[in-house]
């Protein structure tokens, strides 16, 4: 069992081990949905919610079904299946009980099914040998980290609308550069907390 306390995991996965900026997972939706702060907040919140739930569900699946049956190699497929199924379910529940929330987050849910950060969180949870509470904390931290990164990016992009970007760098190129710079900034947190 991993001895790190859940609180440390939570903070570390937001700052030092940010899943987006240190792991570079989930880049596609990060680049696609960061044009406006509002959209970014929506996607970030949806990712956080789904990540907490699926990491916990996958934890249960892995440790109570796959490990006892020695079927660890199935983890990849089953994790993806659980994530997809869960997202579908959430979409339906949301649509039924909170149309407002559905309008705010609903359109992002299909994007989340294929978000590699979510699968990444589930796999990290396995590799790092977290227990249930640690997994939930890691999922929450990972999601919040994603939210933080994408909102930062959206803020910068909104500002960038007014600036004169050199022609060869316009579009994706400058986004990649900015992502790199933000990632380097986050490296400044490294050493503050160490997490395995």
């Amino acid at each position, binding site marked *: 069992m991993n001895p790190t306390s859940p609180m440390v995991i939570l903070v570390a996965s937001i700052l030092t081990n940010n899943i987006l900026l240190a792991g570079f997972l989930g880049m596609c939706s990060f680049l696609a949905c960061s044009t406006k702060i509002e959209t970014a907040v929506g996607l970030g919140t949806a990712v956080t919610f789904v990540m907490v739930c699926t990491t916990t569900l996958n934890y249960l699946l892995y440790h109570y079904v796959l490990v006892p049956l020695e079927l660890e190699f199935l983890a990849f497929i*089953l994790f993806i299946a659980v994530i997809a199924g869960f997202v579908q*379910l959430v979409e339906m529940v949301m*649509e039924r009980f909170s149309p407002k929330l559905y309008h705010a987050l609903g*359109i992002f849910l299909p994007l989340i099914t294929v978000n590699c950060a979510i699968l990444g969180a589930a796999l990290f949870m396995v590799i790092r040998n977290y227990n249930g509470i640690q997994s939930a904390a890691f999922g929450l931290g990972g999601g919040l980290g994603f939210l933080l990164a994408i909102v930062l990016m959206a803020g910068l992009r909104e500002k960038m609308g007014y600036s004169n970007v050199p022609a060869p760098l316009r579009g994706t190129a400058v986004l990649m550069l900015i992502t790199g710079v933000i990632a380097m900034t986050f490296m400044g947190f490294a050493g503050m907390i160490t997490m395995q």
Partner: protein
Amino acid sequence: MTIILLAMAVTTGLFLGMAVILLVAERHLVNYGTCQIIVNGGEQRFSVEGGGNLLAALLENNISIPASCGGKGMCGYCKVRVTAGGGALLPTETPFLSRRDIAIGTRLACQVKIRQDVSVNVPDFLDVISDMVRTGTFDKHAKWRFSIKGEEHEGF
């Protein structure tokens, strides 16, 4: 050998379980019953199963709406005016609609989900074409040929 069987059993079991949960959820959560679609203020009306999108419902009942992307919300051709029951405008639609469009209730038919009775004004097919000609949103080099029987249509 046993491990393969076991793996198959677990995978099938999990998928089956999720499929059942989703089916039950669909039955109980997103069941809207039958809804009325009222076209052009009562000119035509028909009932469809709720839950689908407006574009599919219109096509099913032989009202053709141009939809070159097949209902993915990418082409922006499937504009109709929804006068009642369309729900809120979705962020996927805004890029294709001008402010005037939004003010008169224009929606992308493929993005409107039928949850209740919907009243919709469908543009006349010729209107759509003349609109495309005017704004130049079709391939100008292709040869277009059509004959119009009956009354004269102006505006081309």
